[in-house]
């Protein structure tokens, strides 16, 4: 039987092997390349070896930023304290703070989309503008944001707002419109008022899909956050990656990239599990 058949499914073990194969192949290829390059040039910094990566991770996790004044009691600090003062932790906290601000700003966007979908006056007032706003390339307005809001936190948060909220507003709007009219009418016949229908009938029904939409937009959200940090910031994961690029610090850049991917994966996984746990009735299409 051909493996290129729609009706043929891999066995459990085959499935496990297949799903991990590309990871194993990628890692093997990387270390093979690193070894070959280091044979030719022992000082190669483009593809660091496992030992160099390990040293880079240790340096990033346990040592503070080189620009920072070292603490007077640095030598006597515990490993946990050294980690908390390390640049990886501080950069993570700085980026996470901006990420949470950005995420929090998506909730008013959800409410706007809900009201636009349900209340015709809201929809008429906002829809055309949001449709236009959605077409603006957020990165193209970055210089304008820096001029208007300065290079501090506000401009980075505004970048996220311009980049992601129109998508969330329009997604929520469409989800609201897809709720069968029978459900809305039913709500009214059961004594619900307009806002009861909005929050207790429609929002509750679309909420798992809204969470999915937010989850799928986490990557664009991070993209805009990183763009802001790379251009104008003094801390954060993307700031560090941009800074180390100048020094060809691949032994730290690669762990940083993988760390960001891992964090995003964990946030995504948590949201998926929460969605499943909180909404047992929800079946993804």
């Amino acid at each position, binding site marked *: 039987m051909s493996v290129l058949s729609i009706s043929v499914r891999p066995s459990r073990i085959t499935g496990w092997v297949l799903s991990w194969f590309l990871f194993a192949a990628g890692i093997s290829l990387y270390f093979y390349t690193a070894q070959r390059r280091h044979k030719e040039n022992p000082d190669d910094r483009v593809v660091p070896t496992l030992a160099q990566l390990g040293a880079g991770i240790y340096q990033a996790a346990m040592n503070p930023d080189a620009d920072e004044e070292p603490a007077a009691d640095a030598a006597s600090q515990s490993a946990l304290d050294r980690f908390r003062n390390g640049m990886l932790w501080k950069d993570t906290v700085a980026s996470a703070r901006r990420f949470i601000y950005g995420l929090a700003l998506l909730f008013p966007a959800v409410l706007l989309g809900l009201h636009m979908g349900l209340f015709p006056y809201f929809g008429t007032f906002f829809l055309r503008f949001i449709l236009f706003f959605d077409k603006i390339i957020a990165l193209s307005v970055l210089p304008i944001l820096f001029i208007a809001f300065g290079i501090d936190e506000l401009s980075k948060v505004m970048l996220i707002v311009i980049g992601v909220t129109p998508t969330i507003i329009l997604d929520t709007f469409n989800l609201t419109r897809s709720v*069968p*009219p*029978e*459900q809305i*009418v*039913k*709500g*009214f*016949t*059961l*004594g*619900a*008022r307009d*806002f*009861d229908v909005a*929050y*207790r*009938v429609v929002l*509750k*029904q679309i*909420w798992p899909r809204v969470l999915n939409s937010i989850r799928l937009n986490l990557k664009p959200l991070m993209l805009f956050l990183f763009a802001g940090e790379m251009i104008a910031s003094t801390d954060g994961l993307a700031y560090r990656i941009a800074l180390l690029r100048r020094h060809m610090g691949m032994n730290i850049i690669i762990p940083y990239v993988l760390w960001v991917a891992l964090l995003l994966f964990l946030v995504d996984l948590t949201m998926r599990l929460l969605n499943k746990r909180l*909404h*047992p*009735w*929800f*079946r993804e299409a």
Partner: protein
Amino acid sequence: MVPGSVTETGATQAAVHAEPAPDLLIRLENIHVSYELADGSRKKVLDGIDLEIRRGEFVSVIGRTGCGKSTLLRLVLGSEQATEGRVLAGGREVARPDRDRGYVPQKYSLFPDKTVIDNITFGPEVEEFSLLTRFRPMFYRRRKEFRAEAMRQLRRMGLHESDATKYPDQLSGGMQQRVAIAQALVMKPKILLMDEAFSALDPGTRAGMQKLIRQVWRETQTTVLFVTHNIAEAIHLGTRIVVLAKDGAESSGSKVALDLPVPGVDEELPKIAERVEAAAGHSRLDEEE
């Protein structure tokens, strides 16, 4: 309860301008409904409908597909407005759906995010407690009472207590409609509007649901407006049958082609069926479409 006299289309119009009877619940006055088509022309759906529904009646509305049966129901419901004419419920013009008119549609009759018990208690809860007041201790006390009443309704509909915690997608079509009826009845509406509520069910389940709704109607004396395209179902359930049909040209809207009581004598039912078939312009075989 049946109307006092057998009325055909013209006869009801004369009665409209008389003093409203004390048991009059719904009154449709010279209703016209038309929709604008993409080419700018208008398609007539209903063309001068006059109808009165009295308390306690079980009115079956029947007609061919596209004759405007569901439009008529939505007008009474208040989810659609007539192009001309008006609908009165309890003497007041119907502007939007409200708790006085219960609704059981063919599909999407339950909230998918709520369990069976939460679907039934939704009405009483939302009516008594707003978004903010539902966090008061009083809410939790009343909630127990709502749930007890919901369980009573559930049992009346022939469902088990173990079904209370299930979500709608865990129930069969027939069970979903039983819950939908319980959900509507718990509000004690003045009229129950059922739009092809049993059409999606298999014949066996459908027969069971017909028996159930008839029994519920007898027990509660809730007025029912039942839209169906099935003649046998309409005759079996209704105390009165209203047939909607176009007269002549295809471009014309539907009128009330027949409006007559259904006698309780079984021998007369075939005759009624023949008259309904003739007025509706379709046979029972068409129902298998």
